[in-house]
């Protein structure tokens, strides 16, 4: 099994993350945050801070660093601090102190006195439901509300009314913070008119463009470097506040500047997954055939309405075969920190609601929940002609049920001593996509190759994938391939997000490799070259022709070329007009709930996935495990709490709980491998995010099986399960 190339560096502390870079004369910045949720900054007294030891500069809305909000086609506008005096949420960056040391900057920041003119703040999603607005169109351009109705059916209400069995319920999911191990941070260095920013990001070329735009510099004069990223999960898609501030301050002060958010600051000065409320109605025939699905969603969004969690579009739009479907997405603007993508945006919280509702329907029909799902298995998304390219969800459930011992489940669960034991399951789906990516392949005269793209490996294993797919495409051992990532000077790799990187970069490698091999062969048979005039071919890292063979390094040597390079690009293409694409999975989980004190403990979990071809079994398994653990976390532990005044009540890792080892049993992951070459030549579909999808519902469904209590919100707490 191939292990991770960057594993040894990471576990021995030798991987250099953004903030690990140090330069002579480097100054340190500390961000000042607001302590009201809505209002205007009337004054900021920075006198004491300015005269504190070591302080070099104190920036504020009254004396700001010059920054402009950059816009990208993928992520829209990115807000930059201090350009006006408005406060729209508690914990908003409103100032920046730069000093000789980190401690001096932090101590001085505590001396900044802010006076506000406070305005009423709206901070509760529940209170804001009444003033919800239509969400903007979804990522794919579809309108916020849409329906697919069978011929002769007037409305979804009619379809539900005509259904013999109907379940209706409202579900809620809490906001979440990405809580990546590496806090958002940056080191910015100007050298001869070129700015280098060392900062963890999901896309070096995008970050370089953002920073150039924010500083009004030429794109060519900004270089972004992030060979390692300490976790991102969507939270490092947009360029972060420390990156803008360090870059601007480094220019203003003519010194390298380092800035890192504290863990507490990460909770408000970055962006979170928004909380949601979702109302679902399912109408079915007595045999379980779905007649109608209605899924109405409300997502919290910050006052700038910059991101909405697309829970209806991410799930009910595509998951089941149904004659009638109506979905809607609304947003509730609140005085809360920014929101953004987080692992399986839409699908993760959406699947909690939809897959809980399906479980409720199974109970209402007295049908096995797997049986119910299989009866409504779709060949294509409702109302669409394009069939799934390769769907083996049935097999996932079949294999999973056998592996997990599902047949021993009873509708009432069972008891084991003082523990109530229940089993739950859920479907997982995540769209298979490709983002535009370009990869450069260089063959060197020492018989090694280099595969480079500016994209990122935030722990996903992309670095290793580059060497594996590179080796395969060049017909050489992967050890001969040096993969390179995380540098905006490499061919534009776009963003590592949307579970697309392996399919996108991998496909681009498969375009670049034949090109560089063609170039090599042309070179080998060119006048004066070893195979001049011969019929040449390539295999096993060697050029063959006229009965002779040479390695590519030997050929390059012979012609006096140290290396040759070719690039290849890939993007979503023609295939999108022929099929629908998704990865699929079946989640299983067993929980134990204490009879007296009602703690929920997950005792077993299994995920079986159909994600096309698996390139690196170890990395794939790790991704899925991580995702499943995220799902347990969302189900039982994690949830941002916003107080009435907009303060995040649990904005640190002491009170924002994530599972510890003791909470996680062995995690069983299994793949049914069916390469999907209709999606891309590699046959691989994304599997970064699907691991978390459905898991929270599987936990909640298992809790219901164990206790008979249906909890329709996550995280599920002890008090939800205490009988009166």
């Amino acid at each position, binding site marked *: 099994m191939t292990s991770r190339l960057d594993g040894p560096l990471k576990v021995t502390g030798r991987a250099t993350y953004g903030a690990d870079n140090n330069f002579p004369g480097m100054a340190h910045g500390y961000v000042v945050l607001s302590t009201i949720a809505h209002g205007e900054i009337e004054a900021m007294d920075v006198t004491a801070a300015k005269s504190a030891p070591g302080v070099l500069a104190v920036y504020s809305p009254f004396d700001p660093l010059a920054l402009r909000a950059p816009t990208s086609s993928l992520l829209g506008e990115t807000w930059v601090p201090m350009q006006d005096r408005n406060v729209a949420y508690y914990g908003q960056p409103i100032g920046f102190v730069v000093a000789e040391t980190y401690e001096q900057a932090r101590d001085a920041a505590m001396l900044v006195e802010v006076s506000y003119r406070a305005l009423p703040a709206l901070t509760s999603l529940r209170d804001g439901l009444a003033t919800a607005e239509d969400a903007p169109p979804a990522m794919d351009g579809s309108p916020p509300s849409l329906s697919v109705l069978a011929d002769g059916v007037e409305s979804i209400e009619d379809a539900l009314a005509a259904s013999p069995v109907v379940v209706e319920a409202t579900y809620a999911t809490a906001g979440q913070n990405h809580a990546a191990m590496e806090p958002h941070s940056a080191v910015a260095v100007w050298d001869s008119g070129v700015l280098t920013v060392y900062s963890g990001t999901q896309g070096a070329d995008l970050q370089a463009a953002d920073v150039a735009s924010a500083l009004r510099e030429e794109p060519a004069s900004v270089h972004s470097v992030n060979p390692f990223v300490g976790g991102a999960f969507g939270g490092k898609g947009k360029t972060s506040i420390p990156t803008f501030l360090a870059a601007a301050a480094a220019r203003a002060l003519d010194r390298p500047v380092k800035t890192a958010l504290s863990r507490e600051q990460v909770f408000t000065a970055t962006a979170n997954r928004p909380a949601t409320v979702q109302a679902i109605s399912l109408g079915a025939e007595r045999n379980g055939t779905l007649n109608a699905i209605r899924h109405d969603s409300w997502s919290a969004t910050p006052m700038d309405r910059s991101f909405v969690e697309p829970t209806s579009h991410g799930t009910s739009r595509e998951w089941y075969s149904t004659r009638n479907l109506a979905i809607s997405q609304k947003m509730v603007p609140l005085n809360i920190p920014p929101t953004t993508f987080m692992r399986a945006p839409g699908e993760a919280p959406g699947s909690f609601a939809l897959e809980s509702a399906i479980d409720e329907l199974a109970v209402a029909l007295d049908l096995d929940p797997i049986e119910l799902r299989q009866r409504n298995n779709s060949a294509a998304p409702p109302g669409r002609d394009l069939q799934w390219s390769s769907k083996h969800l049935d097999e996932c459930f079949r294999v999973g049920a056998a592996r997990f011992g599902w047949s021993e489940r009873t509708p009432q669960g069972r008891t084991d001593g003082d523990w109530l034991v229940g089993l739950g399951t859920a479907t997982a789906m995540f769209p298979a996509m490709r983002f535009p990516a370009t990869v450069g392949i260089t063959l060197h005269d020492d018989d090694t190759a280099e595969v480079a793209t500016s994209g990122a490996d935030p722990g996903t294993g992309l670095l290793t994938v580059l060497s594996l797919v590179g080796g395969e495409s060049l017909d050489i051992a992967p050890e001969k391939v040096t993969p390179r990532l995380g540098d905006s000077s490499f061919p534009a790799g776009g963003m590592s997000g949307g579970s697309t990187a392996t399919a996108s970069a991998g496909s681009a490698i498969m375009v670049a490799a034949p090109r560089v091999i063609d170039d090599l062969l042309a070179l080998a048979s060119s006048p004066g070259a070893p195979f001049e005039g011969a019929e040449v071919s390539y295999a096993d890292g060697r050029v063959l022709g006229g009965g002779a063979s040479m390695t590519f390094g030997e050929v390059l040597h012979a012609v006096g070329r140290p290396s040759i390079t070719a690039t290849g690009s890939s993007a979503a293409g023609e295939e999108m007009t022929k099929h629908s694409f998704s990865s699929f999975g079946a989640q299983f989980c067993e929980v134990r709930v204490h009879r007296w004190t009602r703690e929920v403990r997950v005792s077993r979990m299994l995920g079986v996935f159909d994600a096309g071809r698996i390139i690196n079994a170890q990395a794939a398994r790790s991704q899925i495990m991580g995702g499943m653990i995220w799902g347990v976390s969302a189900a039982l532990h994690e949830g941002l709490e916003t107080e009435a005044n907009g303060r995040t009540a649990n904005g640190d890792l002491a009170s924002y709980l994530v599972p510890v080892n003791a909470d996680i049993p062995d995690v069983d992951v299994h793949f049914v491998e069916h390469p999907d070459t209709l999606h891309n030549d590699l046959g691989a579909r994304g599997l970064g995010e699907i691991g978390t999808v459905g898991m929270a519902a599987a936990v909640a469904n298992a809790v219901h099986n164990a206790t008979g209590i249906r909890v329709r919100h996550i995280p599920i707490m*002890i008090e939800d399960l*205490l009988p009166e």
Partner: protein
Amino acid sequence: MRQFELSAPETVDDALASPGAFLAGGTTLVDLMKLDVMTPHRVLDINALPLRGIDTQDGLRIGALERMSDVAAHPGIYPVISRALLQSASQQLRNMASIGGNLLQRTRCSYFRDVAMPCNKREPGSGCSAITGANRMHAVLGTSDACVATHASDLAVALIALDAQVRLVGSDGTRTVALADFYRLPGATPEVENDLRPGELVAEVVVPRLDWAAHSTYVKVRDRQSYEFALCSAAVALDVRDGRVVDARVAVGGVASVPWRLRTVEAALRGSPATQASFEAAAEAAAEGARPLSDNAFKVSLMKRTVVRALLELTEGSRA
């Protein structure tokens, strides 16, 4: 963290002679200094002081500087104590943290820990943010209109159940105080948490001999399985003979302003059969006088259930 001066006295007399904040394991002190909640100008590292030793000859005597992990692992420690310790914090913290420091740890109330928020305990008279704020983790017993924070030590709950005392050393000499009297209810002065005088050291914890405390346990209910403070915990010891409870000790944590002894529950248990029915009946008195807040009413029922669970586990054997 503000600048401070660090010294390391080698004798108790030297430590008592110089004012400053005592540093043992530092897992509370340094944490709160980083948050700007505690801002001592002088810090005295007391780790060289001879406040060590675990003696199990006649009851227990535990030096204030003994580490939580060492005490938990020591043979002859009553189970309720070692279980309380082993369910506290993490192994890394237990290796660092001292027994004296544990008893003096500050509350985990998130408003106490955030200097941007009013808190009567941190800044007397500034107000209590928790009463109207996020108070799920807070206390329902022993609270006042000025403070609803819990005392977060698990060890203290076990010790209170066992009638433990602390030996204190000050410049005026040595005194011994029952732990039950040592902790102060918040009342109107939540900033005063205990009976310790300025400059006084906790030298030793003394637990009177109680042979049937070999039959004791600690149940801790929390939002994850490890590395988290109690929503509710129960320390219980039972003397059961011929199916009847002869004597009982019961205390609860995570629900009260100070480690909370349940003497009425103990009285109800005494003389009753060791059965689930009588445990449930006795536990009814557990939450007497409880004043639930907006987010923590569930602690009233959870407290009774935790007590019942602990009593059952003790009489029926652990049923993991």
